[in-house]
């Protein structure tokens, strides 16, 4: 069964139809790419999926459950996690605390328990510490666990953002331009890591990317957006060979 099923999704901002009749089906464990020229509406699709915007039309099903029009925090609880195009970390928190913040809804205790340091606090904090350190090891950030997130170099900040998203224990991971600002070596390392995340966490990933090498390298299926409309959809190699896709990217 499909993890994500989107039908007829659409939203307008004033007179601009930013996304129109958008359909998307992602199977479990798939690595799916969403590409298109600047301003095509890719990030808007992410914002619709995560409840930042409420769609004018259409429905979104996550793992068979209707999540259309839900609030961002509820969608996070349902199991969609995301990263951002411009990195959004909790800069003044430690790397470890960034990941632990991601587990906010999974290991809970009351505020009073947190102040009195009761057993439930001790258990939850210990579990969170262990899990967070495991996650950080996967992303090779365990040495920097105590550093402030804002002091990490750029590439590691990107990794930490993915680690924090995974800490929410999602069913679907949305990556918004993960390779932005990276050099070819870093991009190559990122590709390996995204594959690793998919295999190790049995994750379904939808990513927005401009780097064609990355897209053709790891995405199994693609959707191409142009002016808010789906231009092409299907297997990566076929989609990238389609003339209208090439036209949209390179012009006539």
């Amino acid at each position, binding site marked *: 069964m499909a993890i994500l099923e989107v039908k007829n999704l659409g939203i307008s901002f004033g007179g601009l139809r930013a996304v129109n009749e958008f359909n998307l089906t992602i199977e479990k464990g798939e690595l799916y790419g969403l590409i298109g020229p600047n301003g095509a509406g890719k990030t808007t699709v992410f914002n619709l999926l*995560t409840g*930042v915007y409420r769609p004018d039309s259409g429905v979104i099903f996550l793992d068979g459950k209707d999540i259309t029009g839900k609030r*961002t*925090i509820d969608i*996070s*609880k349902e199991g969609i*996690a*995301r990263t*951002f195009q411009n990195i*959004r*970390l*909790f*800069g*003044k*928190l*430690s790397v*470890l*605390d960034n990941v*632990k*913040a*991601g587990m*906010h*809804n999974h*290991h*809970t*205790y009351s*505020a009073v328990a*947190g*102040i*009195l*340091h009761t057993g439930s*606090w001790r258990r*939850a*904090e210990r579990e969170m*510490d262990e899990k967070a*350190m495991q996650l950080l090891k996967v992303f090779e950030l365990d040495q920097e*666990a*105590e*550093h*402030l997130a804002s*002091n990490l170099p750029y590439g590691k900040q990107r990794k930490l953002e993915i680690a*924090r*998203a995974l*800490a*929410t224990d999602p069913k679907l991971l949305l990556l918004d331009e993960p390779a932005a600002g990276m050099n070819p070596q870093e991009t190559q390392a990122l590709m390996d890591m995204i594959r690793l995340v998919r295999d190790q966490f049995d994750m379904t990933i939808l990513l927005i990317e401009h780097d064609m090498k990355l897209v053709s390298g790891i995405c199994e299926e693609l959707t191409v957006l142009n002016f808010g409309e789906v231009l092409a959809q299907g297997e990566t190699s076929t989609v990238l060979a389609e003339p209208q896709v090439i036209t949209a990217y390179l012009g006539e």
Partner: protein
Amino acid sequence: MKKTISRTARQNAITYGIVLAFFAVMQPLAMTGKLSSSLSGLLIPFCYYVVLAVSLNLTVGILGELSLGHAGFMCVGAFASAFFSKCVQGTITNSLVRFLLALLIGSAFAALFGILIGIPVLRLRGDYLAIVTLAFGEIIKNLVNVLFIGRDSEGIHFSMKDSLSLHLGEGGEVLVNGPQGISGISRDSTFILGTILVLLTLFIVLRLIQSRDGRAIMAIRDNRIAAESIGINITKYKLMAFTVSAALAGAGGVLYAHNLATLTATSKNFGYNMSIMILVYVVMGGIGNIRGSVIAPVVLNLVLDYFLRKFQLMGDSPVLQFLSDNRMLIYAIVLILIMVMTWSPKMVEKRNALFGRRKESKEG
């Protein structure tokens, strides 16, 4: 991680230690009468200034929202508790029990106001939030000034006009007398109780910061959108920080009220001057630095006390007059200087050149 927990525990222990050491030095000196009268009169103010500064730091430094109405919550705590103490003066004779109950009531009322004001105010951000909290602080102060409550054999009477319209019967007494406030409060505050309150405030704030809830609050401060995306309820945690902050300010107000025989709400004690002064303490101690909020009020007042006495010895000098008249002006200049020193890129450069680059990861 074991290492982190033990390190933060050690940092907290140092903060508690500073408070205890200060108490251990001051209390014997005060008991044996070795302190000047002005300094021994400052001991309890030290305590409520620290409580207020630490609680405001929770809003300004941890939640990251500038609140300029902190004195308003202090005012609520002060009047609610003083009214309670005045009412039960005859029935509860044990001053400790009375004070503790007053403390509970004062903080509870302040917390209630924190929730009521927080719900509309926390929808705003930045300058707008500062302006509206400033207004609410003034509103609270002015409301208290038109409050008349009296008691006679028939029960409690209430008026917003004047004490005559309470229509008290024979043997009735006015408990809250508008601008004249509440008089004849038992002075239950002591330096010991004040120190315990400071420790309690620190305990609550420090542990809150290091809990799951504190992490959520600081996540909202650092990046609201990201916090929402990982499922943190923004409204809930903003309100939580604001309410705890208000309740603790109320507790500071209780300590303040029970240090006076007569409690009135003037612009000097509960107006925005007070709110700004607490903010000066927070900024001087470092925004988000709880230990700084413990040290700054004490140091600032000690320095002020020292200079005032120096000038007093010199006789009635115009400098003294100027200083006491323009205390807020001096605070404002200090505040601006601190901001310039901390944030101006040129100054940061100079400071780094002078003292060597400090490791940034040590902060926070």
